[in-house]
């Protein structure tokens, strides 16, 4: 049982390390939604954002190839789950100025009460949503 915690912990430490390095070298917070929005809305001094996003895709590819780890099983949910989920996630993170990385990892790391409240809120509504979809509207 203990074994199942190792890879999440190692992954979490890598995410923390990356966030610290980005702040130490570039002075930027590794909030993915903010980086994405900055990249597509053509902010000045933008090349670092695009390169970070390229790395975000190359990193997993290298991990799976070099360690011969299989890709996760594709989601059994429908395409419209992806559509609705994506729309809500995008709208919510822009309105709330951050996601799991910006508020959860970096904001809490920076002792921001605002980010702590945001993190508790999206964790709670995520849990409630899964409860409703899996246990109230079974199979939706």
């Amino acid at each position, binding site marked *: 049982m203990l074994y199942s915690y190792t890879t999440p912990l190692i992954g979490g430490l890598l995410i923390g390390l990356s966030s610290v390095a980005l702040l130490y070298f570039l002075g930027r917070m590794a909030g993915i939604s903010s980086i994405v929005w900055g990249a597509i809305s053509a902010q000045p001094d933008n090349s670092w954002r695009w390169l970070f996003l390229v790395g975000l895709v190359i990193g997993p590819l290298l991990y799976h190839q070099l360690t011969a780890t299989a890709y996760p099983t594709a989601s059994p949910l429908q395409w419209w789950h992806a559509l609705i989920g994506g729309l809500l996630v995008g709208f919510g993170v822009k309105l*709330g100025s951050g996601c799991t990385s910006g508020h959860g*990892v970096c904001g809490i790391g920076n002792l921001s009460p605002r980010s702590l409240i945001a993190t508790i809120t999206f964790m709670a509504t995520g849990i409630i949503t899964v409860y409703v979809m899996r246990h109230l509207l079974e199979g939706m």
Partner: protein
Amino acid sequence: MRGIVALLCGMVFGAGLAVSGMTDTAKVLGFLDIFGTWVPDLAFVMGGAVCVTLVAFHFVLKRKQPVLSAGFALSGKTAIDGRLLSGATIFGIGWGVYGYCPGPALSALVYLDSKTVIFVVAMLVGMALANKAGSA
């Protein structure tokens, strides 16, 4: 130099997401399913990451400036207001619907599943809509 550092940071971040299991929607939804057969493992992802940032940010931010930039670009926002709460609420619902938050969704593009592409495009549209609603 800044570009190389950004690329490497992105790679380590993305690898971390893949190693941790965050790019696996089944694991994420299992983690959020605390009233069902709860799989608590993913708590160690944010737990591990926050342990690192909590300690290291404190020391990094004592520096006058970052190594490769003129200054630290921090949000400076402190308000706990309706925008923050409604945004976080909506984001959490979307996360629970499909199992991806923004970083893992982008990293998972490499698995070449068309539904991930739909998710990411919808996410960008959602951001643009919120931006429009916010500036109107």
